[in-house]
């Protein structure tokens, strides 16, 4: 075993980046282009998709038929969004998303995922004791609601279309988008009008 000191992540990241730039394998322009991709990935995009689906039945029909194309209509596409499938919550069935093997997420509409979604605990537990996990996150499901967990093991990227909360019938699309949360589109919480 080597007695050598182990590099900190900050030192390792700086070493790799400087070596890639100095060798010419990557340029500053490449990093700028990667940064532009990063900036396009935002869960507020998904909130706009959900609000549009709640307000526009024809859009919702297209979204359920071809999620990738419907999201692209609003300009939301890119890496980790090549095949988006939308899952609709109903009063009878709740849905939630996980990636048990890494942390795959529909980046263009859900953004880069939060730490809890990437945690080994969520990844390990939600397929096995989903009601307990959701309860810990503040969502208690009635016994007559079926729960379906979607494991992102291949190239499909899922987006949950949550239930529109009661009392929002005369709200505008922008008002609705403002109450949609990232957690509700991963499926671990409901949208609340409060």
């Amino acid at each position, binding site marked *: 075993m080597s007695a050598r000191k182990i590099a900190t992540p900050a030192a390792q990241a700086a070493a790799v980046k400087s070596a890639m730039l100095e060798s010419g394998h990557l340029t500053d322009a490449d990093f700028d282009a990667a940064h532009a991709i990063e900036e396009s990935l935002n869960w507020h995009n998904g909130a706009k998709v959900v609000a549009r689906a709640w307000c526009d039945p024809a859009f919702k029909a297209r979204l359920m038929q071809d999620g990738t194309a419907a999201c692209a209509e609003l300009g939301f596409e890119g890496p980790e969004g090549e*095949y988006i*499938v939308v899952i609709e919550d109903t009063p009878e069935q709740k849905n939630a998303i996980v990636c048990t*093997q890494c942390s795959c997420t529909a980046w263009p509409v859900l953004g880069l995922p939060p730490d809890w979604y990437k945690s080994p*605990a969520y990844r390990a537990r939600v397929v096995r004791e989903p009601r307990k996990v959701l309860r810990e996150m503040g969502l208690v499901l009635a016994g007559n609601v079926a729960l379906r967990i*979607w494991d992102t093991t291949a190239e499909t990227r899922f987006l949950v279309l949550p239930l529109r909360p009661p009392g929002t019938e005369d709200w505008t699309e922008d008002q609705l988008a403002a109450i949609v949360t990232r957690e509700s589109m991963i499926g671990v919480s409901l949208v609340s009008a409060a």
Partner: protein
Amino acid sequence: MDGIHDLGGMAGFGSFEIEHHEPTFHEPWEETAFLTNIASIAMLGAYNADEYRHSIERMPINEYLPARYYERTLIGVTTLLVEKGLLDKADLDRRAGASVRVSQPAVANIDDGLSQSTTPRFTVGDRVHVRNMHPPGHTRVPRYVRGHSGTVLHVAPLFKFPDASAHGLPRRKECTYHVAFKSRELWSESAEAEDTVVVDLWESYLEESP
């Protein structure tokens, strides 16, 4: 590989924290790791996403679990850029002033010889059985569904077969299937009767249900 990354169903983790108003990156090096990976894949074409996932799976178990997400990214990216001959580990060690971390070497899958077809073998409503397979390299069939039967909900388009593409093996694309498993089929009577888990599985992982 039957590695630590294949976490579905494992017990002993306890609860997890939810951070409100969480930033995308918690430290500047996390963004550097993310951007270096995106640039290496999308701009340089140095490796593919399946190789990237496998480079993380090859981390030592005792380093994988406590690592932050972008720490795993950083170790995977470093591993691949060294393995591909683009960077030299000794040079990176000099730059970092300490030993940079890399994953363990890959043990490649061999071609399983399964028949390949670009027309879907299964259709919505079919009962399918997940093969009991344990490839030494990359695979995307979780342990928790191997040997179990489920029902096809959806047939997705053709995608590169990851067990091959993570190891540079030639193989054409296959359909993937969204397969619903009853939670009780996977976890016995401790699960709720109405609950299901859907797993997205390449055709080569599946056979007709007996």
